[in-house]
């Protein structure tokens, strides 16, 4: 295994301490850290002690077979799900026991693009994107309009603000969801399979858009995806979830050279498909 991958594993294993590491000048300072996270749904054990460190300002993609709990993992990072065991740290704050206002304070730093975009179907695209601005920032309407139009233009949906989600294609919904995620200019954005159900061309468009936005705004991005090999060209780090654990994490080039059997098989099948 390469040096960087070993280091990533080292950092992951180091993070199994129960104390948040202080923000230092280390090149791999964690903005999100999962420590020994376990999650069961009934008798089914989905996460079996996940240790994962998400570096700030980077785009980290989590890959893995379907049904392995990648979306579950993502939802733990923003406190939508609480682990049965383990800890989730966001910049030195352990969020698993937070509720109400304290949890909302942490969530203000996040945005999430859901698998189905999760647009509010009773609101137009404009109202969807404007929603967090009106609800959280209570900006004057001219400012709301300006910021919404700006974001819609960035995702290529200029002039589509009056449409309802039901009138949009899958790709347009994802772009509208991305605009809503970006409009509050969050520090961290979670992408839950942003290209699922899209044709390859539209999937590439969404990936390019995510990459462009990530480069422009510099937010920390965590993406769950199956899109191999596409994710290797846009990600800074790739992690693989297998059997409820992170089995590998490395920059894309190192990751593709991994000697790990599960990683090699997954990449090989992904490329064939």
């Amino acid at each position, binding site marked *: 295994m390469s040096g960087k991958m070993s280091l990533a594993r080292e950092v992951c294993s180091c993070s199994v301490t129960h104390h948040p590491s202080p923000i230092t000048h280390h090149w791999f300072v964690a903005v999100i850290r999962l420590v020994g996270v376990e999650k069961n749904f009934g008798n089914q054990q989905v996460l079996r002690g996940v240790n994962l460190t998400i570096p700030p300002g980077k785009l980290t993609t989590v890959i893995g077979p379907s049904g392995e709990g990648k979306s579950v993992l993502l939802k733990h990072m923003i406190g*939508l799900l609480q682990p049965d065991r383990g800890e989730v740290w966001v910049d030195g704050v352990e969020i698993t026991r937070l509720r109400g206002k304290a949890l909302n304070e942490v969530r203000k730093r996040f945005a999430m693009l859901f698998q*189905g975009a*999760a647009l*509010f179907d009773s609101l137009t695209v404009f109202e969807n994107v404007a929603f*967090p601005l009106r609800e959280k920032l209570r900006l004057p309407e001219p400012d709301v309009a300006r910021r919404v139009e700006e974001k819609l233009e960035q995702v290529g949906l200029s002039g589509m603000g009056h449409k309802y989600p039901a009138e949009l294609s899958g790709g347009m919904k994802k772009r509208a969801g991305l605009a809503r995620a970006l409009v509050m200019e969050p520090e961290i954005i979670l992408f839950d399979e942003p290209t699922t159900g899209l044709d390859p061309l539209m999937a590439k468009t969404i990936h390019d858009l995510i990459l462009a936005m990530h480069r422009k705004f510099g937010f920390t991005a965590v993406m769950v995806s199956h899109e191999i090999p596409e994710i290797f060209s846009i990600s800074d780090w790739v992690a693989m979830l297998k059997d409820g654990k992170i089995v590998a994490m490395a920059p894309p080039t190192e990751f593709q050279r991994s000697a790990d059997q599960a990683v090699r098989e997954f990449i090989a099948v992904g490329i064939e498909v």
Partner: protein
Amino acid sequence: MLMLTAGIERIGRTTLFLIGEMGRMLLFLLSTFAWLLRPPLRPFQILKQLHFIGFKSTFVVVLTAAFTGMVLGLQGYYTLRKYGSEAALGAAVALSIIRELGPVLASLMVTARAGSAMTAEIGIMRITEQIDALDTMAISPLQYLISPKIVAALIGVPLLVAIFDVVGIYGGYVVGVDLLGGNSGAYWNSLESAVEWKDVYGGIWKSISFGLIVSWICCYKGYYTRMSAEGLGAATTEAVVLASVLILIWDYFLTSVLL
């Protein structure tokens, strides 16, 4: 012996589940009220829900009230005539409607029309992750989605019951007086002398509590729906059945207290 143990186990599991479910329902209601007291207040959301739960239910409530009053007028007139007491028709219709039929039937109509829609709407929002999206934006779904519905039902159902009462009494009048030839003055006079303010207050208290039952049960069932189309269908059915049954049971208890 094994069968007996299995049976007891099943009863125990069901009992534990029911106790847990009741606890969750109570916590859901208390949390919603707690969020209701925190800013921001959402008058526009409440008005929107009032329009949906109240105004849009008016037609079906008026229709039910009219025919309920008419059938009471019809049945009451022929029954009372046997004893030479047609003059008491107004009192019979008004007391039946104001005390019992108005609050119960109007609430059942709201359950069928608006309650089922509430469960379906919230359930779909749960399945399509719209509720999770609210959470990720640090907006409480209980405050944004559920509280306005509960407030609107608490205001809307009593207003609908008032409409039901008036329309029902006129329905009885149309049949008993206009169609069957009863005495108009006797109808209103018997009504005025029989109905007391405590009957009206009783009806209002009932309608407020029924409004709470409808919105609480229907929102809860939608909020915790199983994540499938079948699950949502089941949640909607459960919501309507449970809310209707609770309205009838609660009506009995309230009546026994108010009488």
